[in-house]
């Protein structure tokens, strides 16, 4: 369990504002901080990692206090068991993929490195330097480097924002897989709704330094207009006209389904949608 209750004065594009948040992350939970850029999301991650200090409050990870302004406790980042994936990956350009992972370990353990390389499918690239890798591959190395130390919490700062859609979708699946496989507790920062929807167990919607909504992604992003028995998130790949009706081809996970578009809402290719069934009539709605 991770407990965060902190305050910090920040300077944004529209002047000063107070970042004041209080939340908990349960073990093995995937929690996302969602919100516009400049709302203080990344600062929260950086404070948990010890790269920045809150003005007041406390941060507690698995019963260990990382920061407490009253007790004047401030554990340096080196002593905090966090895995941090930076937005720009921050891979060491002077080290190969293998050396990047080796550097992250206190005692180099060849077997463990190979194991992690296999999980992120990088065995063939282990002797390459980061600048010879694609964005998606660099992202995988960054992820591997962060999890190889068995962190108590994995912090992902907009991990996929620099990648194009197809790579992003694949990596979303991988992040989810790794999160489950290694029983991680993950805290991600993102402003991409479909991504947040796909990955998170719980979402904190942050605006100007305050949490304005909390809950599972469905509760946060979808109003209670639909009470479907089951529903999936997908992306519209194609829309074709067939006589008087329109049929959308929607990619849900690895599956393609065809859904008849009803109602007045306009859809276009590339829209992220929620496909749900209401008494066996699929209903489709933008998310």
């Amino acid at each position, binding site marked *: 369990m991770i407990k965060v209750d902190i305050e910090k004065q920040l300077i944004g594009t529209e002047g000063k504002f107070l970042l004041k948040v209080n939340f908990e992350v349960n073990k093995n939970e995937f929690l996302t901080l969602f919100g516009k850029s400049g709302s203080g999301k990344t600062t929260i991650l950086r404070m948990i*990692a*010890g*790269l920045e200090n809150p003005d007041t409050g406390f941060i507690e990870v698995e019963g260990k206090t990382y920061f407490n302004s009253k007790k004047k406790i401030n554990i*340096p*980042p*080196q*002593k*905090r068991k*966090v*895995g*941090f994936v*930076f937005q*720009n990956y*921050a891979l*060491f*350009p*002077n080290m190969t993929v293998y050396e990047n992972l080796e*550097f*992250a370990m*206190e005692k180099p353990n060849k077997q463990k490195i190979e194991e992690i390389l296999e999980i992120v499918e990088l065995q063939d690239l282990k002797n390459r*330097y980061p*600048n010879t890798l694609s964005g998606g591959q660099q992202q995988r190395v960054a992820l591997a*480097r962060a999890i190889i*130390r068995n962190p108590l919490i994995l912090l992902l700062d907009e991990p996929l924002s620099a990648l194009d859609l197809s790579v992003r979708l694949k990596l979303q699946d991988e992040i989810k897989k790794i999160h489950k496989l290694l029983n991680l507790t993950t805290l991600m920062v993102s402003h991409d709704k479909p991504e947040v929807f796909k990955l998170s167990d719980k979402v904190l919607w942050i605006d100007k330094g305050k949490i304005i909504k909390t809950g599972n992604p469905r509760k946060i992003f979808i109003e209670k207009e639909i009470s479907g028995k089951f529903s999936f998130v997908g992306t519209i790949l194609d829309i074709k006209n067939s006589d008087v009706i329109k049929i959308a081809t929607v990619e849900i996970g690895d599956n393609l389904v065809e859904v008849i578009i009803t109602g007045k809402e306009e859809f276009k290719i590339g829209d992220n949608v929620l496909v749900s069934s209401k008494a066996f009539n699929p209903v489709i709605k933008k998310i």
Partner: protein
Amino acid sequence: MEIDWTPFYLTFKLAVISTFILILIGIPFAYFLSFSNFKFKSSVEALVALPLVLPPTVLGFYLLIIFSKNGSLGSLWEKLFGHQLAFSFDGLVLASIIFSFPFMVHPLISGFKTVNKNLIEAAYTLGKSKTQTLFKVILPNMKPAIITGTTLAFAHTVGEFGVVLMVGGSIEGETKVVSIAIYDAVEKLDYSSAHIYSAILFGFSFFVLLVVYMLNKKFEVKY
């Protein structure tokens, strides 16, 4: 004609020793100046840059006074090592370190500033201490700056004339480096010696710079 290689040997020895010491003290100094903020930082920065703007004779004059038998450092040196600091090779090394200091430190400071901050933070979150981060992450990623600083300090020591003349004079085999030897030769109207010394120094300087630019190009391609 016979070429007296002693001035070259002296110049080379002076430049190698000074540059080596400059690397040792320049790196921690530049690291400190780049990553900390203290009250008199601007004054320290101004002091470091002073040899860039001062006429060498001014610097040489003050160093001569400090290094002389009655000077603060000179008298201490004589007690410790039994010979005077002014007009000795040791004095030249010390003077070289002082006047080449900005040539080493300035490229290093800009090097430290170009290293992506996230790399340093990533190393910290991976449990690495500041020292480990400095040697394994920061320095290897600013090789061009280290090469530039080293070369400039080396080249500047080889080429310096004014300070060397003031502090070292022209003692054969002790302080008579190439730049002084050329000056002496010209004064004695021994143009052929002056020509030879100058041509060798010219070629040597060009070669050193050429190697540096080639190395820098190589590192730029790699990273």
